[in-house]
């Protein structure tokens, strides 16, 4: 078996998308401390808002991306105000079940508004240029650059800014953070804004690279969770490493296993990851 470098490149693209998405998920988990099943549907919502602006209203893609990211940031806050805020003191398990209800609602709202079938952004489809035998597209290169920029930005946010340090503090110990004078409800608001925006961006990237579908986020949720868990849930650095690992493994796997089992890579990674290393690649237990 020869490993075509094309598979690796494909994996890096998919890995970028998973990393970005996993980052948003893990940020939200860090502070809210529950697994948000609706996260995939946040991604889809971002992608569809951008689709409406780009393909339906005919505005340039850049404007559409801004609208999708901004719209989903606002959307995440709205969902929190309407639903999650009322469950702030509930157990993580209750919140997880609540988020299933939210997911059902959002996904079917998307189907009701935009229909059940797939769509594309208004981007021309053409043969991709190739470099050293690897085909790449402008969108793919943009996705990788954008994800690297975002990852850097989030790193700076979490390490260098006051709000970011407080976010990390709150994900470590919410009560102690309050004792230090931090209004954690406000932090929660910021986290929904950041997490929603990142989800929206992840969804748009996915839509650009693949297709915009109502369940696009839900079906990507397992690889994203796998990445998050492999990297240690709540740990942004781990989420990124896990994202690239899953993305590349998944694409390269078609060389060794039948392609219909490609999806099993993420499933197996998630299961094995949780069973063997519940604390993640970098090992610091957050629970």
């Amino acid at each position, binding site marked *: 078996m020869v490993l075509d470098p094309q598979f690796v490149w494909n994996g890096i693209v998919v890995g970028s998308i998973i990393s970005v998405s996993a980052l948003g998920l893990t940020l939200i988990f860090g502070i809210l401390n*529950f*697994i948000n099943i609706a996260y995939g549907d946040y991604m889809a919502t971002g992608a569809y808002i951008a689709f409406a602006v780009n393909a339906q209203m005919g505005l340039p893609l850049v404007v559409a991306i801004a609208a999708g990211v901004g719209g989903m940031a606002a959307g995440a806050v709205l969902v929190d105000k309407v*639903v999650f805020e*009322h*469950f702030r*003191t*509930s*157990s*993580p*398990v*209750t919140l*997880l*079940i*609540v988020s*299933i*209800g*939210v*997911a*059902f*609602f*959002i*996904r*079917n*709202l998307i*189907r*009701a508004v935009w229909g*059940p079938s797939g769509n594309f952004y208004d981007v021309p489809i053409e043969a991709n240029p190739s470099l050293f035998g690897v085909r790449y597209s402008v969108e793919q290169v943009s996705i990788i650059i954008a994800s690297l920029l975002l990852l850097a930005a989030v790193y700076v946010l979490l390490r260098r800014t006051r709000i970011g340090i407080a976010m990390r503090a709150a994900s470590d110990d*919410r*009560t102690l953070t309050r004792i230090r004078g931090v209004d954690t409800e406000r932090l929660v608001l910021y986290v929904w804004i950041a997490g929603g925006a990142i989800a929206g961006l992840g969804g748009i990237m996915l839509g650009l690279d693949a297709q915009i579908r109502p369940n696009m986020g839900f079906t990507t949720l*397992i690889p994203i*969770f*796998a990445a998050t*868990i492999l990297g240690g849930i709540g740990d942004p650095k781990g989420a990124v490493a896990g994202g690239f690992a899953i993305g590349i493994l998944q694409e390269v796997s078609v060389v060794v296993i*039948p392609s*219909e*089992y490609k*999806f*099993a890579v993420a*499933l*197996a990674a*998630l*299961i094995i990851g*949780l*069973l063997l290393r*519940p604390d993640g690649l970098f090992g610091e237990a957050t*629970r």
Partner: protein
Amino acid sequence: MALLDLLLVVGIIAGVYSLLAIGMNIHWGDTGLLNFAHAAFFAVGAYTSAILTTPVLETGLLAERVVGFDLPVVAGIAAGTVLAAGLGFVIATTSVRLEGDYLAMVTLSSAELVRLVIHNEAWLTTGAQTLKNIPRPLESTVTTLPVSYDLFYFLLVWGLVAVTYLLFERMSSGPFGRVLHAIRENDDVALALGKDVSRFKLKSFAIGAGVAGLAGSLWAHYVYAISPVMFLPSLTFLIWTAVILGGAGSYAGAILGAVVIVVLRQVTRFIPGSVPFADQLPYIRLMFVGVVLVVVLYYRPEGLLGNAQRLQAGTSEGE
């Protein structure tokens, strides 16, 4: 007559869902385990029973299945139940020590893995194609009787629901159930009582999975044909909604929740095409399911028939 037929068919579906909900209730209601693999147990029950009771009959290009036994239906149903329980046991052995929401993710992934295998191992399951010609139990006998087959099957399914209900009610209020409740409230308490918590969790998981397998077998033998698209995660989520709606911890509630969900779905079929947003109706219906789930958890977390005090002990962690 036709209306009676419809009621019987809806009743059979509701009975099958009730069994699923009963199985889920021992996991969640009694033991506090988050099982997101219910669709897989349902599938294993259905496929085991179907494979055991059909010969390898298919001909033509898509006939890839080489396994089939043509055994009596009873053997199929029994094996379906046992194998589903076995799968529950296997999933539980690996993951039952995990915390609640992690367990949810592992079980969800395991269920998807099971579905992927069913979808792709055509030699065993016919893969994406429909596994058809599944026999109905006692069909030739029943047709000689003055009752419709649907009535017979309705009575069969609800008879089994009743038996299962009584068994589980008794188990839940007996010593075994009390240990499960102790585990649900707090692992440490049960440990302190000298109970092997993992073993009880394993048993609970296997028993509930077995009931789901029974439901799968019964369903397969009613609908003639099964295929992997019947076992998507959305089925699991729907059963969750039924259990929470009915009241976690209450078997009567689980049955009531399942019946309410099935009847609601059926009732919306009578909405004429002339109402506004009729094209969006299937989606609005599922949006409604989502709303119900959230609203119940907020206003009546103990569900329609649940016990509020027990619920509080089990699920609110505080800061």
